[in-house]
């Protein structure tokens, strides 16, 4: 096991940021913690990277206890915090060299690890980090986190605030790193990134809703799901909620995702109902759930909606 956590918990005042989590992450795995802001991802990462003491439970990374053996562990883990932690007034090269030096290594020694990423930003190596675009900052931050050849890499929301193209490139880099045997733990609020991980934990309000491969999670989705469409989106939502068999109704881009409380519902029944409501253009077809559908279904179950 690369990482194990047993009943790991942390609270700030009355707020339980992380509620007694237990999980295992294998060596060489690309593991994702998927959940919205405030789910406890950052707190969890800070405990695993020895930056915060857990209030309850224990965790070990690479067989080292995050509390007792933090000094040894710090030599072996790479961490990229939420906001790309770079020195804005230092150049690309100076940032990288600095992080290499404080880990007692040199850029040259581990250049093979970062080569594919670094050549993309090398043309700008004299530029100050503050003047880089979001995508380039992200790449530099990744290089800095990798330069000491860590055995496990923690990336806290590496794709937040970065455009779609850079996000895609970033995930490809992670795949390459995984191929080199580095265990990678990544957090993201973007559900669509779940499918890029080997396994994911869906996390919400400090608890893990489900933990599995992305395929298995969507396969567990219990109810028949339909994508419904009409030109009058807002009215369509209301009409579907008025349907007596409706279980859940959520807008989903240009469609509405609808689940029926009956096990054997047919799309024709839905269109027929909608036609009766004046939606003559309505279309419905059966679809497979995606991670976001699964996440919402898990959120709906017992605790329901958050009320301040």
């Amino acid at each position, binding site marked *: 096991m690369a990482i194990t956590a047993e009943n790991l918990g942390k609270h700030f005042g009355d707020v339980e940021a992380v509620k007694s989590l237990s999980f295992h992450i294998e060596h060489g795995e690309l593991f994702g913690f998927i959940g919205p802001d405030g789910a406890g991802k950052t707190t969890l990462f800070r405990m695993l990277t020895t930056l915060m003491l857990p209030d309850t439970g224990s965790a070990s990374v690479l067989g080292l206890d995050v509390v007792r053996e933090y000094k040894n562990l710090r030599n072996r883990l790479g961490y990229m915090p939420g906001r790309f932690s770079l020195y804005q007034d230092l150049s690309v090269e100076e940032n990288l060299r600095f992080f290499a030096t404080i880990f007692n290594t040199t850029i040259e020694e581990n250049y093979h690890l970062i080569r594919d990423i670094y050549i993309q930003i090398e043309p700008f190596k004299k530029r100050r980090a503050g003047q880089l675009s979001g995508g380039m900052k992200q790449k530099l931050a990744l290089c800095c986190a990798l330069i000491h050849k860590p055995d496990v890499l923690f990336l806290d929301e590496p794709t937040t605030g970065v455009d779609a193209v850079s996000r895609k490139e970033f995930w490809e880099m992670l795949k390459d790193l995984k191929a080199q045997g580095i265990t990678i733990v990544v957090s993201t609020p973007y559900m669509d990134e779940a499918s890029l991980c080997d396994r994911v934990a869906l996390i919400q309000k400090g608890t893990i809703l489900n933990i599995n491969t992305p395929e298995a999670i969507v396969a567990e989705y219990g109810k028949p799901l339909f994508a419904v469409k009409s030109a009058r989106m*807002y009215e369509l939502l209301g009409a579907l909620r008025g349907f007596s068999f409706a279980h859940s109704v959520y807008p989903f881009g*240009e469609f509405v995702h609808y689940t029926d409380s009956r096990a054997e519902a047919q799309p024709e029944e839905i269109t027929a109902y909608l036609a009766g409501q004046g939606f003559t253009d309505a279309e419905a077809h059966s679809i497979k759930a995606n991670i976001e559908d699964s996440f919402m279904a898990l959120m709906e179950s017992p605790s329901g909606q958050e009320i301040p």
Partner: protein
Amino acid sequence: METTTTIKPDERESVITTEQLTKRFAKFIAVDAISFSVKKGEIFGFLGANGAGKTTAMKMLTGLLSPSSGKASVAGFDVYKQAERIKQNIGYMSQRFSLYEDLTIAENIRFYGGVYGLSRTTIADKTGALLQRLQLEHARNALISSLPLGWKQKLAFSVSLLHEPAIIFLDEPTGGVDPITRRQFWELIYEAASEGVTVFVTTHYMDEAEYCDRVSIMVNGRIEALDSPRGLKERFHASTMDEVFVTLARPSA
């Protein structure tokens, strides 16, 4: 409500029109002769990579930045001469700046109402209605900082509609919000649009784009594509807006 929505978008009046709108900073052309129009009640997605010129374009449309050349009118007002009138008639909400964390919900509403010159009684009426609609009456005196992110976002959106603007500009409104709250947020947007408010959303998250009636994609200061999400996906033989965007923004890839 029924009547406004049955009209085809094309027949509605335009509330934002630009013609060859351009902004130059020294030698750098941030926005390069963009022309488009947005109809009343439309949800318009304004997409682009980091540094593509989205922010600059939006600053010109909200009257914060004077264009270098070209024409633009927003809510019937000229961006060159009537910037102050534009500000009175638009709402703005961004993920970064929305409400004052150290004030209560009611205090924030009163403050924004005051900024837009609403009378005391109007503010009181609207506060009640707004809290009722969001089911937040019990939290009237709660500090914004104590609210979950999702509630802040919904509240910020509602507050930016307080002065009944013709257009509301949203800057990455739902980043980082949980999927259910995010959908509740989009329902608020649909509701506003169905009442005739034009919604102008800038984002670089493609799943937000899927909710829009039409989207434009900016690359290097120019609008490279403008259509409904479905139209764009068909044109680029893509299954998601993400693929459309990647094709456009990085043609070589």
